[in-house]
């Protein structure tokens, strides 16, 4: 009808039948790199295609997958949650202390989750009621949580024998072969992580709250002018990320069987790296939960790869840093390209 409409119609036609979204490029790149890493590992060391490798990758890093999903939500809105690592510490210290005092595990777990809720809610209040930057708000809750954890105990606390936490870390063999390295093993922790991923996907793509999260990431003021409940959504986001951090703590604590006030130092950064590697734009608006899962897997596979290569452990962080750099540069390029199209 108008030149403008015709132009757009043409643009639409060009992409019809193949709905490719340039915003997915970073996420697709993450998948490709993950596969390349696996292929390389397999070609050089011959252990990366084994089911046992996958089993331990998922079992050992279920907590990171949960944290990555948790971190995806605030980052999608252009915010951040720096407190997740400290929430892991405080909840695990409290949980193990309670179990040591004879409290049944399921009560301890509920208390741990509630603690996560409280810290998430606190961050929400600071951000929404006191108009604080998410960075500052969660930085303060991070110090608060870490400080309380240290006040409770600075000792290494071990879960007592025969506690009911065990059910989470108990191996479930799906494929049992004579050689343990060919077994496919999971545990409840992995199942929890998978459920969290599904939860994250449904929240973001199947609910109006999820759409509001993306809208806030695009432009908070627009979202508000459109009448979307931006404030309530932000509360939900930090509540969910705090609670998921506590859940990650439950899974991790059950796995290692102990707790210490220094556990989880820097995990918020691992979670952020996973989210960024997975293709979520750090300024918000674009990104996928599944990307963050891939990011967490990429992040997790770097450790065995570098050690197999004989790279000193100290170097691992440099590799992680380089990877993040590459992904951010890539995202910049993609953003610039899609901006040009206009």
């Amino acid at each position, binding site marked *: 009808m*108008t030149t403008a409409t015709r132009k757009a119609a043409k*643009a639409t036609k060009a992409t019809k039948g193949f709905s490719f979204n340039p915003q997915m490029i970073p996420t697709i790149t993450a998948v490709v790199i993950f596969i390349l890493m696996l292929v390389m590992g397999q070609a050089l060391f011959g252990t990366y295609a084994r089911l046992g490798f996958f089993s331990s990758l998922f079992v050992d890093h279920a907590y990171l997958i949960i944290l990555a999903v948790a971190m995806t939500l605030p980052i999608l809105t252009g915010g951040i949650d720096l407190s997740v690592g400290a929430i892991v510490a405080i909840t695990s210290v409290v949980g193990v202390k309670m179990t040591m005092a004879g409290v049944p595990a399921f009560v301890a777990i509920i208390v741990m989750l509630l603690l996560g809720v409280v810290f998430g809610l606190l961050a929400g209040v600071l951000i929404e009621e006191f108009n604080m930057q998410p960075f500052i708000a969660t930085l303060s809750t991070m110090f608060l949580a870490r400080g309380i954890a240290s006040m409770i105990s600075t000792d290494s606390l071990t879960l007592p024998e025969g506690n009911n936490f065990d059910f989470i870390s108990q191996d479930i063999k799906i494929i049992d072969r004579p050689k343990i390295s060919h077994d496919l093993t999971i545990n409840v922790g992995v199942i929890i992580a998978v459920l969290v991923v599904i939860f994250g996907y449904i929240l973001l793509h199947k609910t109006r709250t999820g759409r509001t999260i993306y809208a806030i990431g695009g432009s908070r003021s627009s979202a508000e002018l*459109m*009448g979307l409940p931006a404030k309530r959504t932000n509360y939900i986001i930090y509540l969910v990320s705090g609670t998921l951090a506590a859940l990650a703590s439950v899974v991790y604590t059950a796995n290692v069987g102990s707790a210490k006030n220094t556990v989880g130092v820097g995990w918020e950064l691992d979670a952020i790296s996973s989210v960024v590697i997975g293709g979520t734009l750090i300024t918000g608006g674009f990104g996928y939960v599944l990307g963050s899962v891939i990011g967490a897997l990429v992040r997790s596979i770097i450790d065995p790869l570098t050690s197999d290569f004989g790279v000193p452990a100290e170097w691992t962080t440099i590799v992680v840093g380089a990877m993040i750099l590459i992904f951010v540069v890539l995202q910049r390029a993609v953003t610039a390209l899609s901006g040009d199209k206009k």
Partner: protein
Amino acid sequence: MTDKQPIVVMKGITIEFPGVKALDGVDLRLFPGEVHALMGENGAGKSTMIKALTGVYKINAGTIVVDGKPQQFNGTLDAQNAGIATVYQEVNLCTNLTVGENVMLGHEVRGPLGINWKKTHEAAKQYLAQMGLENIDPRTPLSSISIAMQQLVAIARAMVIDAKVLILDEPTSSLDANEVQDLYKIMRKVRDSGVAILFVSHFLDQIYEICDRMTILRNGRFIKEVMVKDTPRNELIGMMIGKSAEELSQIGAKKARRAVDAGEKPIVSIKQLGKKGTINPVDLDIYGGEVVGFAGLLGSGRTELGRLLYGADKPDAGGSYELKGKTVSISDPYTALKNKIAYSTENRRDEGIIGDLTVRQNMLIALQATRGMLKPIPKKEADEIVAKYMKELNVQPPDPDRPIKNLSGGNQQKVLIGRWLATHPDLLILDEPTRGIDIGAKAEIQQVVLDLAEQGMGVVFISSELEEVVRLSDNIEVLKDRHKIAEIENGDTVSQQTIVDTISNTTISTGKEA
């Protein structure tokens, strides 16, 4: 028409901000099936009034009745629930989402398994079709369609919430003529379906073309509600600015053109200066004391040529740039400023003002940049500079310590002009200095342009309003499709029509450089 019942009745609306009464007992009635214009200068209280009706601001006194029900709005959601939808000047949609997602945000079709995307997109498609956008796939990213279409998408969104009142706040300010006509088509369609439309625009022609009734505000007060067809323009302008409308048309109308002395050196002389993809190589001389107008349609390269002169875009090799007879290379704004060339952007909000800084800081920032950050301007000197330009340019309110974002558009523009004048430029490039500002401020800025030229400064005046280009310029550079197609010396025989004819009659032979 008189027997119609208004759908919205706002009575005695008063809104106070600390120290200012933004609205003082203003009335507004909106009728279904009518387009209603809210008229007034910037600072008259139009946007405040709109924000009162959309629930952004809480009113201190007065009543709002929508569809017979008294309303207390505590946020935009309340207003939307009452059936009031708004399309703002800066389209408030989310560019990171698709067209369909934007239309349906908050109203997605849900099934037992959460959002049903298939049905949501189908619904979006229907709403888009109502806007004449049936060709757009709802899955297209919003960022890939033009601003004009984004505006229609925003209106489609209003249809989703089944709005009884649609507020269009300066929807036309970034549209070209065809797009405006498309918008009118949609507006008429929406109006005929019984929706009350509240329309705000600075273009009087548009008001007379599309509106039925209007309410005039001045200085936060209600002046009058009139029917558009019964109100001649000069009467309207008189009501808006409260002074004789003839004053405006007299500015520059004497057309006392300045003759260039033989042998006089131009301030700036460029030869074959261009940049691939933005503007084809141009020859141009600008003398001191003259106003050079750049005329052309949107996308003609008028802004691009201005940016090139200022070094905001780096020119391609092959051209020459002479400044008072000396060859220079102006490849960045810093060099330009050092060489006494200043450029005031067309994009006041994003590239011009720094919203949270005060008027004073905004005004001094360019001068400080030319001095270097290690040599602060002495306080006394700074005070004098700020006082001088605030007075000369009549910045309102005359308080240099107010954040600039709290000023009206026209006054922000004056501060920006002050910013560049403080650097004492020989050449001042003004890109759309009068866009989106009220008639009073417009007249003042036009007068400033002429005064500056009078004092010997070279002024480049870029505007999409041909009328003011013709009225103010000594020389008019006509641009079309990124080529300079003509240079017209202004005189009694030159009119807006001359420019329009030049643009429509010139065809650009491709492959050859203009």
